[in-house]
């Protein structure tokens, strides 16, 4: 069953393939047009089919790489649970990749020798002046389309071709992030690095685009432009754009929401079990029949959930329905959920909003403890400057989607721009 699902969902690589095919088709059209307009024999077409096939091999090699990445992410997850099988999954994909690359090499050699070329197409008739004019317009339109496609392909390829490597201490690298809503530039050319194991604060006035940044990182929004790389579970950098919103958790990126999103129809414990969703490996059949594998997994997940509840001081609420619980508890449930899937980057959107002073102090304590005991990086948005200055190692201030300052808390507090745009403004107001 799981395999059927995998086939059903439109994967990023499928999209890439579609784009490349469309690109090829358009370019062929353009070349035809050019050939026609200049009325020269279709010389460049001779090599085209060969180059075309080379390109297709490239696309296939790329897809295999992508599949390897994906398999690796999944296998790592499985390996975390059961141990083993990770290397194997990776090896099969790599073998496949090697085969494709061999084929490509052989074909390229054959092409060089001139073996793979087609016979030249017959020369075309000289076109009329009117036809030339019309084709010029068509050509311009086509070229525009091609340029657009080229950027989309470049983006779809992402890290696949030129794999980026992050410095060892960087967990998340955001470069030139842009998110436009129509004319509104909610995030505009934002770049920052989040270091491994630090508590990173993102601050800015209301509407500055903080939540939007989070939504881009967790793939709820498809960024208009820019790059986001994350140091994945396997240790190598992954392009977050390659992931769908529900897959970023595979690399340990988890988040909370500004307006608490707790599943109210189920108990607190079940909320945590849902958060462990990707930790189950049982097939649908095993679930429908309640086979022993599922029962075992359920038992393990339940134990883990109880441990997290204990850690969060929520044990007393475990069998309560989330509906009707106090706000402070709901916020803690949300944070507890992020701890269920071996988190590596926890993204908190205004965790202190709506909490009173004692609760905020407890929260600060809690975030520090999570940071240490779960050994994970924390990225948070917060309005409570006291909290931010208290717990954050690095602070990044933004306003109207643009970077104002980044550095230690002291540096950011001392920054002129920040004082006028943010701190100053709020003090005067």
């Amino acid at each position, binding site marked *: 069953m799981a395999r059927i699902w995998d086939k*059903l969902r439109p994967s990023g690589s499928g999209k890439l393939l579609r784009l490349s095919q469309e690109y090829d088709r358009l370019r062929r059209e353009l070349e035809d047009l050019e050939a026609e307009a200049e009325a020269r024999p279709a010389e460049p077409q001779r090599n085209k089919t060969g180059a075309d096939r080379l390109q297709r091999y490239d696309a296939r090699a790329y897809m295999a790489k992508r599949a390897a990445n994906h398999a690796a992410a999944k296998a790592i997850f499985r390996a975390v649970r059961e141990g083993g099988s990770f290397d194997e999954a990776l090896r099969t994909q790599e073998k496949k990749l090697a085969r494709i690359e061999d084929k490509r090499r052989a074909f390229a050699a054959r092409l060089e020798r001139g073996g793979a070329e087609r016979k030249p197409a017959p020369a075309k008739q000289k076109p009329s002046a009117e036809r030339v004019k019309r084709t010029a317009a068509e050509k311009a339109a086509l070229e525009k389309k091609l340029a657009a496609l080229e950027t989309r392909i470049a983006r779809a390829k992402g890290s696949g071709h030129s794999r980026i490597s992050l410095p060892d201490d960087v967990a998340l690298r955001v470069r030139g992030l842009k998110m436009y809503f129509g004319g509104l530039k909610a995030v505009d050319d934002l770049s920052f690095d989040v270091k491994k194991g630090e508590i990173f604060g993102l601050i800015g006035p209301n509407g500055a685009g903080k939540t939007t940044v989070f939504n881009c990182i*967790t793939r709820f929004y498809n960024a208009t432009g820019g790059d986001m790389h994350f140091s994945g579970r396997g240790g190598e950098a992954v392009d977050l754009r390659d992931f769908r919103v*529900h897959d970023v*958790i595979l690399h340990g990126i988890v988040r909370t929401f500004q307006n608490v999103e707790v599943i109210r129809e189920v108990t607190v414990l079940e909320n945590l079990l*849902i958060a*462990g*969703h990707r930790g189950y490996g049982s097939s649908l059949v095993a*679930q*429908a029949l309640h086979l022993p594998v599922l029962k075992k997994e359920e038992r393990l997940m339940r134990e883990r959930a109880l441990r997290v509840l204990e850690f969060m001081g929520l044990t007393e609420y475990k069998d309560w329905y989330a509906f009707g619980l106090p706000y402070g508890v709901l916020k803690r449930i949300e944070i507890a959920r992020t701890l269920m899937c071996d988190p590596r980057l926890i993204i908190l959107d205004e965790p202190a909003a709506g909490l009173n002073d004692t609760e905020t102090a407890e929260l600060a304590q809690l975030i520090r403890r999570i940071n240490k005991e779960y050994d994970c990086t924390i990225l948070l948005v917060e309005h409570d400057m006291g909290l931010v200055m208290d717990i954050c190692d690095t602070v990044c201030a933004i306003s109207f989607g643009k970077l104002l300052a980044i550095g230690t808390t002291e540096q950011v507090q001392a920054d002129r721009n920040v004082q006028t745009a943010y701190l100053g403004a709020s003090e005067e107001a």
Partner: protein
Amino acid sequence: MKMHKLRRLMSVPLTQIILFAALMTALQLLSMAGLIPNSFTYAIGSTLIYAIVAIGFCLLLGYSGLASLGTAGFIGVGAYAAYYVMESFGMPYIAALAVTLAISVAIGVAVGFISLRVEGLYLAILTLGLSEILRNLLMAVQATIKIDISNARLFGVQLNDSGAYMLVLVTFSLLVWLTSNLIDSPTGRAMLAMKNSTSAAQAMGVSLMKHRLLAFVISTVFAAIGGLLYMMYVRVMTTSVSTLLTMTTSLNILGAVIIGGAKSLWGTTLGAFIVYGIQSMFLSKIPFFQKNPAFITMLTGLLIVVVVMFFPGGLTQFLSGIKAKLQRSFRKVREDIYGKDLG
């Protein structure tokens, strides 16, 4: 303690299903012995068929939060598949089941994909349209389908009325068991998450596409199996006159699920008995209602209004409320007699 163990055993769905099936079998035996009228158990059988459809719908509405008004069309698909495979080609029930499953899975996947783009009421209207297209298509192909009793065979054995009843009962029990397992598993919880908050669900790694597709596939498959069983049990269906394939059926199924309490399988079954069972088992025996069948529909409508107004959680909520009240008064009586400490 013995009492404690018994209570725990009773809370397991499998025990409940076995007890229910045993009770229904006993009723059938009684009717075969001539102790209760045949028409009574016949009505139970057809109500169970509706209950199967309703349980699929319960998973869709109550757990996944997706609305559909296309149930009737999906029932029709199963019924026609049964007719063509068994009556026209003379193939066995298993073949009809396989064909029904294949077609309904395909339809479920298609509607599931649609549900990724269209949501809420629009989705309901869209499925309604789809169902009407299916119905008119089936009607155009053949307005009345009828399965000859000699063709209603299972494993080579011809099914008489009580055989078909048992087939319905066994299918119902099996499907309730599978569904209750699925609900109490990561998939069921993921569906609830998706119903409550799509963004939270996605952030926790739940794929909307996978679970929406699954919910629609399950509900269409259950509806189609309902249609298939209907052809095995009632053996005749008319598209043009009967109300089975019209929107009324879709709405009645919706009503059964809501009356029962959208999130409970037994509640849904109870809902099916209230919407379909009461009228066919009791009311249609009363001369007054025989003369004025419109009153039956009105009574059902009134019941839905009352339940929705006073017990939005359905009859399940009503019954658990009564249970809690009883327990409280029992405890009080016990405390009065033995004193607080011993109670």
